[in-house]
């Protein structure tokens, strides 16, 4: 009798609680999904390869890989240096800072990234810009990328 009572309390109660949690959790709005591979258009790739960013891409189409952990993103340009930056996702906006590699014309400089994700028919688009920090007179490099369909192991 005691065992059965214990069983009901220690097993039954958490199971009921689990059902409640599953119900409640469905109302939580998670961060938007932006992870995966984004293909940069040719013009954007050309602009990013110019001084002083010097992101020399290895193949076409040029790629931008986004590794997402909730609102914490890591963007990696598929250039020769595999330039990578930590980015924060807030709603549809991405903001982060990229420290340029030694290969760039102005190595060690910090570049600010701002981008917006726009839901599209079939493919999401990312419109963004890169701009040197603390340098208002430096030009802003615009880029555009399209998200490749996700092929998870499902």
């Amino acid at each position: 009798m005691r065992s059965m009572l214990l069983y009901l309390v220690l097993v039954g109660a958490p199971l009921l609680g689990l059902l409640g949690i599953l119900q409640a959790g469905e109302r939580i709005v998670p961060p938007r999904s932006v992870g995966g591979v984004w293909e940069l258009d040719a013009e954007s790739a050309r602009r990013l390869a110019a001084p002083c960013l010097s992101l020399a891409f290895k193949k076409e189409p040029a790629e931008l890989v986004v590794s997402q952990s909730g609102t914490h993103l890591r963007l990696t340009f598929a250039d020769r240096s595999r330039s990578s930056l930590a980015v924060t996702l807030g709603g549809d906006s991405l903001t982060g800072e990229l420290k340029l590699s030694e290969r760039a014309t102005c190595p060690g400089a910090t570049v600010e990234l701002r981008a917006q994700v726009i839901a599209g028919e079939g493919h999401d688009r990312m419109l963004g810009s890169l701009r040197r920090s603390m340098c208002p007179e430096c030009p802003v490099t615009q880029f555009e990328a399209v998200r490749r369909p996700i092929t998870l192991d499902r």
Partner: protein
Amino acid sequence: MHFLLTLILQIAVILLAARAVGWLFRRLNQPQVVGEMAAGILLGPSLLGWLAPAASAALFPPESLGYLNTLSQVGLLFFMFLVGLEFDPRLLRGRGHAAVVISHVSIVVPFFLGAVLALFLYPRLSDGSVSFTGFALFMGAAMSITAFPVLARILTERNLLQTRVGAITIACAAVDDITAWTILAVVVAIVRSSAADTPLWLTLAGTSVYLVLMVLVVRRALGWLESFYHSRGRLTQDMVAAVLLLVLASAWTTEWLGIHALFGAFALGAVMPKDPGFVHDLSEKLEDITVVFLLPLFFAFTGLRTSIGLVSGTEMWMYAGLCLLVATAGKFGGSTIAARLTALSWREAGALGILMNTRGLMELVILTIGLELGVISPALFTMMVLMALTTTAMTTPILEWLYPARLIRESASREDVEMHEHTVLLPISLSSSGPGLLRAALALAPEGRQTRVYALHLQRTSDHGLSRVDVAELPAQNEVLRPLLAEAEAEGVEVRPLSFTSRNVDRDILDVAHVKRADLVLMGWHKPVLGRSILSGTVAAVLRHARVDVAVLVERGAAPWRRILVPYRNPTEDLGALELARRIATNREAEVTILHVVAPDRASDGEGRLSSRWEEHAFPDGVRLKLVESDKPLEAAVREAREGYDLIVVGVSRAWGTTPTPFGRRHEALVRASAASLLVVRRYDARAAARSQDALEDALEPKPSAVAPPRQILAGSTHGRT
């Protein structure tokens, strides 16, 4: 670089790192698997990629990882099959209500807390591509897993399997294992069905049919394999091939059904016949290549995807700490409370809780599935890998604190020892040496004292992640001790069998000799004499450090011994041999020849000295004293040994070349000289040891009276050792 060159280089580096870090962790009393998991992380971006990014990129170029992944997945398939093979329904029998309650609570509580944690982490570390239900169920499953192989190994190593806490823990872990994998199969089906065209009900229905077929049809059909094994008396290569094909077929089926290939491998292992011989032989065939070669590749591949850099900043480390806290609270807390409320004391319940909290590589397997499915994000994957590593690494030290090995040893040694008994400890490593050692022990019994014999089989721990759990085996059923016990029964002698797993065999022999208050440790030597030196390794360590008399028998022919030779030169080193030879002569009515070798210039001296010893030792009739003048005692003994003796009894002495040496075969001269057996005797002089201890203490500490004498010396003196 050509892909094969890269792959070979990768494998070599991974194996080297796994063995080196595994060895290091074993030195720290951690299971080898924890070291191998850590090695994987060290090879990834968390250390190698951070310290030497160029070397890391050259060693693990992204385009080469596909081959590594494929190999590691194949390894994982066979590992999961082995884990399933270890599952034995007998583990669950007779464990009572307590085991049922504890095992279910140990799953449900961490599962529930994992889901609670999901409420907090979902908006922070997940994204819209994953449903909350999938995320929460996955977190629950990941929190509730227990690493059965690591747990079984810890229980075996600490000799806890025969204790109440060990028996309940292993039963709970077995239930957890099956339940957690079943839950995970459902979670995978749910997650996959949301992204695939196959409806969930179809996947679940297909899985149910598969399971019914496995249990009702395949399991019975596999009985044929067991019968075939028994008829052949061994596992043939054709049978191994058949098993491998079945593993692949089962894995393919579950992958096709929409759950994971690993479930198929695990399920086939679980329904395989559980005949101990069959399981043992099959495991032996598959285990080394899987565990030593393929599994480290999985750890490395996991490590390559574990980037501690993703857990940056206070906020992320707080999430990581929360994962660890919830995992431990759920598994350790839940199991401990359930165990305390049902059957066990606080100490036992705590030990059970910390054992159940061991997640090991089973957690890595689940996390890898979750990452591949996209259910968990890379940062959460890293946090959970750190949690798995921490919960596994903390098990041994906390278990030692909660349930010290001292307590286990003390409970094992609670046995009355009659003071007038002559206690002999026989460490047995090969079954064939047991009967001979028992006969020798009986021949060496002193007059007027009853002999108590302990037969000890220590099983060395292997260094891999799997561990056989023999639920039925008691020391008396130990295969190695069986011939000795049969001989004891034939002789009408009571022998007490002891059997346990050992990390350090010589230390454990000394411990048991101390606990059982042995008067003599009698060891065998069974390797080819010319293959390796006799007095090395464990034998040498016991000879050096035992605080009791030690004898080592090199058996060349079965007793009874009719003609015995005792080379004698020095009373300090040879009196022990003389005494044991006297006992054999008394007990077996053997003819003893004492070869007294003296230096030519001290011949008359020597004879006089031994004559007095002769009377002191009261040798029976049939003892012959042979005086030889020689500067080379070993050569003199070798010459005499060729005269057709059955046994040579010799002390540990430089004169006879019997001082333990790791190299060299000088001491084997006596063995090679004749076909006789050799008994090397080292007598422990408690008084001399006490004197040297006192001298040492005097030198170090000017208050000898404040220092208690060593317990062993006291124990030895009360036994009136010869």
